[in-house]
Each structure stands twice: as structure tokens, then as C-alpha cells.
């Protein structure tokens, strides 16, 4: 039960203020500004409790979104709502920026009225919202009676996320598997912690009310299939080591959870347009696309020698992109000389780091950078803490090993079959927090 929702700019000025419950007063707006946005020390906790009022905030570039409540609400629900709110706004007017918010404030208030009622989250599906909250304010006049009644039945009906009577000439489906790899590695190459968090994002342009079925190489499903059809030789060979263990996953509201619980099969009536089908996390058998080998040598009090080798660890036919290695430098650095075999490297004083960028790199390759860092002797006896070397990249495969086995579409009323649908699948593995200690 969210009591109110505020949006601030970077200075702490209120751009949007919507209060849903009486227990939230105007002073809550100021309390958050004073205690969080203008706090001397940076507030790192996303939940702040000030005078028995809880503030949940997320930050998008320079914009703060804060949900306020006096009650003991489910914090995960509030954050889910805030993220959803960001998605909705982004799908309506693009990037969330101060200017965009100022330009669309009427729309935002309209959205807030719709997706939150007396503090309880309502339908926040963009596709559905777009049918009755439009950016062309005058459209309402031209809506026919039928359309209006359709809106009502859709909003109150069982399948709130999809309206009836959608028609496409070409039925198409886009499926992206987006993963981010997180790693912390010791200087000796020992993995201290690693996990992959992934999302399956879809874009569907399908006519009617199709029923979809999605299959992937989930270990439980594969094992079950293997047991069930021992006689099926082909099925057995495809399973085995290729399957992955998913630690936990969440689904879009359109997925029938009862069916997933009983049969582990993911079936759903998809919303129209963009949506995120599921999220998952894996921790086992992760393919680490890159290995970073650091070498740091202190030469006296005024010099530091750093050598970093990166090795790509995937099929040579694949190309990694947007590779960026960030090597932190001590706080008393007074000068840096860098030599690298590939790409470009630069000392960025504003970030206290050497940033090495490589545009593309094929699998099973190796590259190296070496830097000499000059230090200014200080009277401070504090030792440099040696923060880890971090890395960014993008690879065209799923580091978790997830594979899409099938995506079937059934539409009984309209006359098109699974074969008529054009399907696109793409895998993108990105770096999350990918760090190696040095």
C-alpha cells in the first residue's frame, strides 16, 4: 500500500508528486529531499526510514523516484512497481530525463491514476495501458462505442494484457536471451563468486489470441523427458550435458503458473508488442568469456608497474564486442604511460583509472596492456586499497549455457499454424560486475 509517489530531479526539486493516502503529508516530500538527496554522506540503502515513514527509491540517471508509505508493505512489491513504472514511462516517452518528465507531466499523472489505486498497484502492462491512455489527447472523441466497451471488458476481463481482434499480415516473433555475467576472481585465478542473471525478452506480432509454448534446456525438464521417453534415442542424445540448472526464475503475468508448477512447461497467451517473458539466475557451470590476469609491481614509493593480460575463452568463430578493461590507479597518481597491443588505452584522471577499450575480439585470443604509474609522495601513511580490475564486454552467446529448444504458437480460431510464424532468436551475454582482484 504505497502512500505516495514522488519524482525529483537531481537538485531535489519535486517534478511529480502524487499522494494516494492521507497519512502521507507534504512534509514527506521535504524529508526525503533533506535526508536522502541532500544527505552529506551518500545514502546507499534504497529503503530509508524517516520518522516512521518508509521511503523506497530508485534512481534513473539524474531522476529520483521515491515511493512513500507509513505501513509495513512488501518492499519487493514496491520496487517491482517502481521498476515497472520506469518501464511504462520509458515506453511512453523514451528516456527518463528531467525534460521528458516535465514535457509529459499530464501523461504521468494520468498513468499514476491508472496503475496505482489507493496505493494498490493495478494493471501496469504497457500494451494494455496504451489502449486507453494515449498520447494523442483527442483520440477519445473518435473512439466508437464498441471500442470503448471493449476497453472496459478488457480491463476487467481475465486476460487483461491482450485485447481481442489483433490482426497482422505477417505473424512474427522475436526472442532475445539477455544475460549478464557477474564474477569476482582472485589474483591467482580462483573464482570467488560467479553468477548469471538472465532475461528472456520477447516481441510478438501475432494475430488473434494465440497460445504459446516455450521450451529451453532446463535440467529438470530434460531429465523428465529423458525418463519419460527412454525409448526415444534421439531425445536422449540431445539431453545430457547440454542442460542447465536454473536456480530461480520469475515469469511475466501471462505465463500460466499452475501449468509450470505441475508440468514445468511454460505456456502463455503473449501480450502484444514488447515484454519480458521471464527472468532467471544460474550459478553453476558458467562459461566465463574472459580471463583477466593482473600483475602489479610497486617500484619504490613513487612508481607502480601494472601489466594486465586478457584471454578470451569461447569459440574462435564468435566475436566479442565493446570490450573495456578498467584498471584503477592509486589516488596519488601524478602521471601514467600506457602501452597496449590492441585497442586504445587512456588514463582517466576523473575516474582514477586506466580505461582500455577494444572494439572486437575473437575467441581463444590473448591481449596485453602494460602501464607505468608515477606517484606523488604524500605524507599520508594510508596504503592504497587496490580496488579490483573490472571489465565490460558483450558476447553473442549465453554464458549460462541456456538454449531455446522450441517456441510453439497455436491459434485455433484463426487459420495460421506454427510454421507460418516467423521466429527470430538472439543470444546476448553482457558483463555485469566482472571483477578480478589485483
Amino acid at each position, binding site marked *: 500500500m504505497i502512500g505516495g509517489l514522488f519524482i525529483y530531479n537531481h537538485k531535489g526539486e519535486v517534478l511529480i508528486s502524487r499522494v494516494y493516502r492521507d497519512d502521507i503529508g507534504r512534509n514527506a516530500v521535504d524529508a526525503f529531499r533533506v535526508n536522502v538527496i541532500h544527505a552529506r554522506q*551518500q545514502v546507499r540503502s534504497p529503503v530509508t526510514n524517516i520518522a516512521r515513514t518508509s521511503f523506497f527509491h530508485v534512481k534513473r540517471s539524474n531522476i529520483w523516484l521515491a515511493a512513500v508509505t507509513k505501513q509495513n508493505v512488501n518492499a519487493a512489491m514496491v520496487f517491482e512497481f517502481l521498476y515497472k513504472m520506469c518501464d511504462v514511462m520509458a515506453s511512453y516517452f523514451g528516456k527518463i530525463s528531467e525534460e521528458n518528465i516535465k514535457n509529459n507531466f499530464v501523461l504521468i499523472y494520468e498513468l499514476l491514476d491508472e496503475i496505482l489505486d489507493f496505493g494498490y498497484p493495478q494493471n501496469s502492462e504497457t500494451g494494455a495501458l496504451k489502449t486507453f491512455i494515449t498520447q494523442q489527447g483527442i483520440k477519445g472523441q473518435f473512439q466508437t462505442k464498441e471500442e470503448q466497451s471493449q476497453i472496459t471488458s478488457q480491463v476487467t476481463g481475465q486476460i487483461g494484457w491482450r485485447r481481442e481482434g489483433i490482426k497482422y499480415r505477417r505473424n512474427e516473433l522475436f526472442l532475445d536471451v539477455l544475460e549478464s555475467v557477474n564474477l569476482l576472481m582472485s589474483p591467482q585465478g580462483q573464482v570467488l563468486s560467479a553468477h548469471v542473471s538472465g532475461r528472456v525478452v520477447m516481441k510478438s506480432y501475432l494475430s488473434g489470441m494465440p497460445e504459446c509454448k516455450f521450451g529451453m534446456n532446463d535440467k529438470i525438464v530434460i531429465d523428465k523427458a529423458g525418463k519419460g521417453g527412454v525409448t526415444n534415442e534421439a531425445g536422449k542424445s540431445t539431453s545430457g550435458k547440454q542442460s542447465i540448472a536454473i536456480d530461480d526464475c520469475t515469469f511475466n503475468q501471462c505465463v500460466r503458473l499452475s501449468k509450470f508448477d505441475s508440468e514445468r512447461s511454460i505456456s502463455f497467451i503473449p501480450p502484444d508488442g514488447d515484454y519480458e517473458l521471464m527472468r532467471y539466475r544460474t550459478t553453476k557451470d558458467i562459461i566465463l568469456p574472459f580471463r583477466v590476469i593482473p600483475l602489479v609491481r610497486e617500484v619504490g614509493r613513487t612508481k607502480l608497474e601494472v601489466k594486465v593480460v586478457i584471454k578470451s575463452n569461447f569459440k574462435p568463430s564468435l566475436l566479442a564486442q565493446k570490450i573495456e578493461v578498467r584498471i584503477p590507479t592509486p*589516488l596519488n597518481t*601524478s602521471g601514467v604511460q600506457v602501452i597496449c597491443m590492441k585497442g586504445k588505452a587512456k588514463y582517466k*584522471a*576523473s*575516474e*582514477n583509472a586506466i580505461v582500455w577499450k577494444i572494439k572486437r575480439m575473437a575467441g581463444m585470443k590473448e591481449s596485453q596492456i602494460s602501464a607505468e604509474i608515477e606517484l*606523488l609522495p604524500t*605524507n599520508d601513511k594510508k596504503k592504497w586499497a587496490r580496488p579490483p580490475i573490472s571489465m565490460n564486454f558483450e558476447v553473442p552467446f549465453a554464458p549460462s549455457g541456456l538454449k531455446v529448444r522450441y517456441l510453439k504458437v497455436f491459434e485455433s480460431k484463426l487459420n495460421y499454424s506454427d510454421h507460418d510464424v516467423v521466429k527470430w532468436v538472439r543470444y546476448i551475454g553482457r558483463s555485469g560486475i566482472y571483477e578480478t582482484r589485483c
Partner: protein
Amino acid sequence: MPAVSKGDGMRGLAVFISDIRNCKSKEAEIKRINKELANIRSKFKGDKALDGYSKKKYVCKLLFIFLLGHDIDFGHMEAVNLLSSNKYTEKQIGYLFISVLVNSNSELIRLINNAIKNDLSSRNPTFMCLALHCIANVGSREMAEAFAGEIPRILVAGDTMDSVKQSAALCLLRLYKASPDLVLMGEWTSRVVHLLNDQHMGVVTAAISLITCLSSKNPDEFKTCVSLAVSRLSRIVSSASTDLQDYTYYFVPAPWLSCKLLRLLQCYPPPEDGAVKGRLVECLETILNKAQEPPKSKKVQHSNAKNAILFEAISLIIHYDSEPNLLVRACNQLGQFLQHRETNLRYLALESMCTLASSEFSHEAVKTHIETVINALKTERDVSVRQRAADLLYAMCDRSNAKQIVAEMLSYLETADYSIREEMVLKVAILAEKYAVDYSWYVDTILNLIRIAGDYVSEEVWYRVIQIVINRDDVQGYAAKTVFEALQAPACHENMVKVGGYILGEFGNLIAGDPRSSPLVQFNLLHSKFHLCSVPTRALLLSAYIKFINLFPETKATIQEVLRSDSQIRNSDVELQQRAVEYLKLSSIASTDVLATVLEEMPPFPERESSILAKLKKKKGPGAVSVELEDGKERGELNGGGDRGGDAAIAASNASTPSPSADLLGLRSAAPVSGATPSAGSLLVDVFSEAGPAATSAGVNDDGFLRFVCKNNGVLFENQLLQIGIKSEYRQNLGRMYLFYGNKTSVQFVSFNTTVSYEIKSRILNVQTKTVEPLVEGGAQVQQVINIECLTDFIDAPLLNIKFRYGGALQNISLKLPVTINKFFQPTEMAAADFFQRWKQLSQPQQEAQKIFKASHGMDTEVLKAKLLGLGTALLENVDPNPENYVCAGVIQTKAQQVGCLLRLEPNAQAQMYRLTLRSSKDTVSQRVCDLLAEQF
């Protein structure tokens, strides 16, 4: 290009600051700062020589970054380098950086101090000022150590510029405040005082701050400043407003200097020199006169400056308190301010009047403003001003206007702010008591007080009213009647119930004759309040009920019924239950005679300081001082007549009960019943448990004494509370004894006191003791040294008497100090022939003492030898033909004479007997030593 930017402008800095200001977010700001820091680091790397301008610029940037809240760990060296620059701006930035960022980094401090020293010795006044400002801003101990000697020299040097002198004076003031032990004025004192005569007003103003501070610490050294200050003041006061050109502020000549001068004079008593005093009085009069003049300007600054001087002058007049004329004039002046438009002025006037009221000269004058003050109390909007008005009313109250003031304060109390109510209540209570001529008025007032502001009436107030009612038999009847009437109100405060219960319980019989207040009516009235009260009040009411049984036997049945009810006798509160059970039993078992004795009327209370006054003192120190001073005598006449001489029942135990609640609740009578109550709490102070330990002062304790005949160190005395250790050493006729008093408890002993008494021995022993601290903390040990000189031989040992209070009970311990004649033995070695020759010389019968006694400790040779050596004599080997026997010789040293002493101890192992023979040149000595020694074996 650099030539253009090398002005004072520092464009780089301006650009940097505007960049930071334009940052959209904290992160962007941090990025910008990191970039700048990296840039500065590369510039400071050391291989390039930087010119002064860029050094200044970068140091400035660092300073700015530091002030934004980031740590700076380099650049100190560059800042110190700037100090040696010849350009003002560069030096200034250097000093600025140092005073903001200096830390006790040893090598840098040395460099900085060096630079400052150079600047101080330079002839350039601006540089000297910069250095002085830096010293003052840092003000650290190191700085004080380095420059405390230098600055006074600069201050008094004849050729120092005026501006530097000002800085030096203020810098010295700062150092003195920070580390007063390092700033020693000594020889400079007189020359500093003479700065008051300086031509330059700025110097005088700066110097006077310094002098005021110094003279408040050691007024005597700076005494000469008084006459100088007076002459300076009179010059300023008498000058026309145009005389002191730069120092005239809105037509007021040098207001700050005048105020400071007046404040300096307040550190000293009125000048003794008649001429000086006359001049000062003239000044003060002029100031008072000027206040009457029409203002020269309508600006608020003009009146502020003028009033500042006036109030400072009035403070001085009050401080002197010797000029009736001035005091009255000041009072009149303040009276005008009482109705001034300015709230601040009204406040200040009331505050000053409070102090004026305490002076005997102006008390009457203050009293004339009573109406205005009362009006202020009623109509003033500002609460702090109302508070001052209340204070002033309290201060100006005396016998003549007490009734009016108390009535006004009471009526104000109904609307008073909650924050000051408790204080007001105390004040009303005190005034009512102090100036009561008529006790019925007093009782009325206090009961009114409880009615109006019951919540704010503290325990002390109602204790006091009960004390007074009990001690004055002429008001008892009236009090009972009034209380009875007050209790009839449907809702009355719990404190009222307490007072009512107590007074009716004691004096209910005085109004019982009236059928409207018959015993049963009284009881029912009290009991109707019972259930609404808290536990302590109920306990008090139960005691009142049992007293009722005694006073009115006809109520016995009703009351017993009440006591017997489950809500009493099975009350969950142990105190109430116990009272109910005990009172019930008492009333049913004891005969009327016993009841009458047990429940006798309370004896009058011993005189003591009013507990209310003590409370007010605690609440608020200075405000009430004046009244308290006279309080002693006033109270005498109030309660003096109240002694009922004939009453023999004033129990000594009652007088020594420490808590005021004890004597009020009248449980002395119930004590025999509840003597065993463990939960005495604050209500039931068990006087008997306190009497117990006090009785431990039993006779002289001397079992420890004999153990010390043959040894000097050990534990002399020990009980549950105290352990006394002893350590002593003797040389010839002198001895020194260390006593260690160890507190074995965790509670501190108070008024710890020891005395050594030696009745008639003043000519025999000379004993000097050092007194010990009166407080011995729990678990602590204190040491006492006793020096003893033996004048002549003696028998009785001095007595040590220890007194202290432990938890309120007085402890008294008497011990014999283990000083015996044998302590002054000087061992003498002699050969056998020698010994026997002397032995024969001392053959007169009175010179010999002999004892035959049974061994009580066994006859171990080594132990015997040790004891004989411990005695102080020399043990002579191979003297006696019988090797079993022991022979000793020694000389007792007293101041008057030396007494030779020979000893022979013959043990008989079979019979377990000893024969001890002593011969000495003095018969008393032989006898005494023989007696002492006989106890040892």
C-alpha cells in the same frame, strides 16, 4: 598569454569553481574534482619548478576542494613555500591554507614556525599581521609554545604599528584562552596595562579585551588598570559626539570601548582612591543623564548603542552596590524601560531589576514598580519576559507586599506556561512560608496552590506544609477544617488527598465535634478518594485510617471492614497488603492504651532548612540567591514559636532519619509492627535498622594491640566495613607509623575522621597526626602518617579513634595504637663479662622484675629467638652458662633519658614454663617490659 592571466584574478580557479557549481550530480562533481586533483598532482610532481602564481592558484584549488569536504593529503609543502614569498597575495593564500589544514605534522610545523618567525621579525606590518592572524587561527599548543614569549614583546614595543598591536593583543588573548599556562605576562604586565592610554582607539579596544581576560584570572596583578580605565572612560563619556571621529557610532562615542571598560571595572571592587571614585561616579551619572536626553537619531543603532552602555553601567552600579543615589537612579531608569516598546529592553530591564532588588539601597525603589511588573506578568506576550517578571516579583517580595504578590502569582499560575509552572509553584510556596504572619493564610495559600497546579506541586511542597501544621498547634484545627472542605470538591488532586489524609489522620478530632464533619463523614470522604489514588497515596491513607481508629473508636468497625476487604488484605501490591494486614491485626489485638501509645500524635519536626528552598536552589542557582541569604533569620521567627516544649516524645532516632519522607509519614508509630519489613522503600524508613550499625561503637578494641609488641607491620583491625593495616619504623626515640584504612564495602564512607588521643601523656609521648580526607570511596584505601616522639617512658598506649558515616549510620571505632615502650629499644651487643657486671650493678630489688608463667604458644627455639629480636633488644649468644637460656640487652631511648635494660629468659621444657627476669635502671620500665613480654610466649 600567461602574462595576462597573472593578475590577481586566477582565472583557472574561477573556471574550476564554476565547473563544480554547474555539476548536475554528486558523481559529476567527484569526477571533476578527481580530474583536477590529478592535474595538480602532475604539476606538483617536483621535476618542474612552478612560479609563485601557479603555486598559489593550485594551493587555492586544493583549499577549495578541501572545503567541499574531500581529503587533501598533499600540497602542504607548496603552501609552506608560499609563506616565504614576498607577494602579499601568495603569502596570504599560504597562511590561509596553513590555518585551515594544519595538522601536527612535526617537520611541517617546524617549517611553518620558522616562516612565521621570519614574518614576525620583518618590518612589514602586513606580513606581521598575517603571521599573527595565523597564530591566532591555529591557536594550537605548539604555536603557543613557540610564540607566547614573542608576542608580548611585539605588543608593547614602541615602534610597532597600531594595526599590528591590535592583532598582537587579540592573538595573545586567543593563546591565553587556549593554553593559559604558557602565556606568562610577568614583566609585561604594567606595559600592557598602559596600552589603555594608547592614542589609537583600536589598540585600546583590542588591549582591553586582553586585559579583561587576564585580570579575571589574577586581578591583583592588573589592579593598576582601574584608574587608567576610569580616566579613559571619563574622557570618552565627556567627549562630544564628534570628537572621536572614526569611533563615533550613530552619535554615540566609542560604544564598544565604553562597554568593555565598564565590564573591566566589574572585575574589581569600587576604587579606594577618592579622586578616582569621584571621577567614576561622575561618569556613571553622565551616562545615566545621557539616557534621559532625547535621542539624536531615530535609527535603532543609535538607541542600541546607547542602551548597551547604559545597561553595562547599571551592571557596574549593581556590582559596586555602594552608591544609593546611583542605585535609585538606575532603578528609575529601568522602570522607564519596563514599559518600553522593545521586548528586549523590557527583558533586560526586568533582569537587571532582579539584581537591583537584592541591594538594600534600591529594594524600596524597585518595589515602587510592583504594579508595572504585575501587569507585565499578566499581559506580556513573550514567555521569557514573563519568566523574568515572575523572578523579579519573587525578588522584590517582602513582608509588606507578600500577600499581594503571592495572590498575583497564584492567579497567574492558572494561565502560566507549563515550562515555568513548577518553578512558580516553588516560589509561591517559599514566599508564602517566609512571609506568613498568619498561618491560616499560609495554609489557604498552599491548598490553593495544590488546587490550581497540583501536578506541579512537588513532594517537598506538601511535606513542608505538613511539617508546619504539625509544628504549629494554633493552625491545626483550621488546617483540618480547610482540608476537609477542600476535599469535598468532586475532583481534587492527589497531592490534596495526601495532605488531607495526613492532616485528618492527625487532627481530625479537632473538627469532629461538628456534625457536618463527624468522624464517619471524614472517613467516608477520604475513602471516596482512595480508589483513584496511586499506591503511595493509598499507603498513606491506610495509615490515616489506623489513626482514625485511635482518634475515633466508633469508626473502628467500619475501618476494620475496609481493611479486611479483599482489595486491601489481598492487594497485589506488597506494601499495601502488608499495611492492611498489620493495621488490621494491630487494631484488633492491641488494647486502647497500646493503640494510643503506638498511634500517638506526631511529635514536632526538628528545625532544618526548608526542603523547598533546597529544591529551588537545585533547580536554579543564581536567581534566588538574595532571598535565600535572608532566609535563615526569617524562618526563625516563623517556626521559632512552634516548639512545644513539654513534648518529651521527640525521639532521637527521628531526628537522624535522613529522608524527609520518613518523618512525614508518621510511621514511627507503626514501626514496631513493621520492624521486619524488608521492603522499607521510600515510605517506610526503618529507623531501627539504622540504629543497629550505629551501636557498634562498643568499647576499646585491644586484641590487636598485644600482637604488635614484637612486630611492626601487620593488620591492626578488621571488620566487615573497614580494615586497618599498620606499618611502623622506629629510630632511637622517634617513630613513624603508617596507617592504612581500607574501605571493604562498595559504598563510600563520608566524614571519615580519625583522632589520636593520649589523655595525660602530653608530656610523655609527642604524637603528630596528619588528617585524612573525609571521603573514602568504596574499595579505596587511604593512608595516614603518625609521627611519635617518646619523651619519657610510659605504660598506656595512645588511643586511635575512627569515626565515619557508612550509609547514613555513624560508625565509631576505638583502638589502642600499638606503641609500646620496647619499640624504642636500641640493641646493645656486649660480651659475657660485661653483661654480668652490669647485671650485678642493677641488683636493687625495685630494679628487677620477674615473672614465672606457663608457655601458651609452644617452645620452639627459632620462634623464641625471632620474638626476642622483634622486641628490639640484642640477643646475646654464649653469655649464659646454660645454653637453653636466652639473654638480651638493650637501651630504651626516650628524649628525657636512656634506660639500659637486661633480660634473661629461662625456659623449662618439661614443665612448659618460663622464668623471665628483667633488670633496668628504672623500675617502671622493668615492670612494664616484663608485663608486655610475658604475654608473648
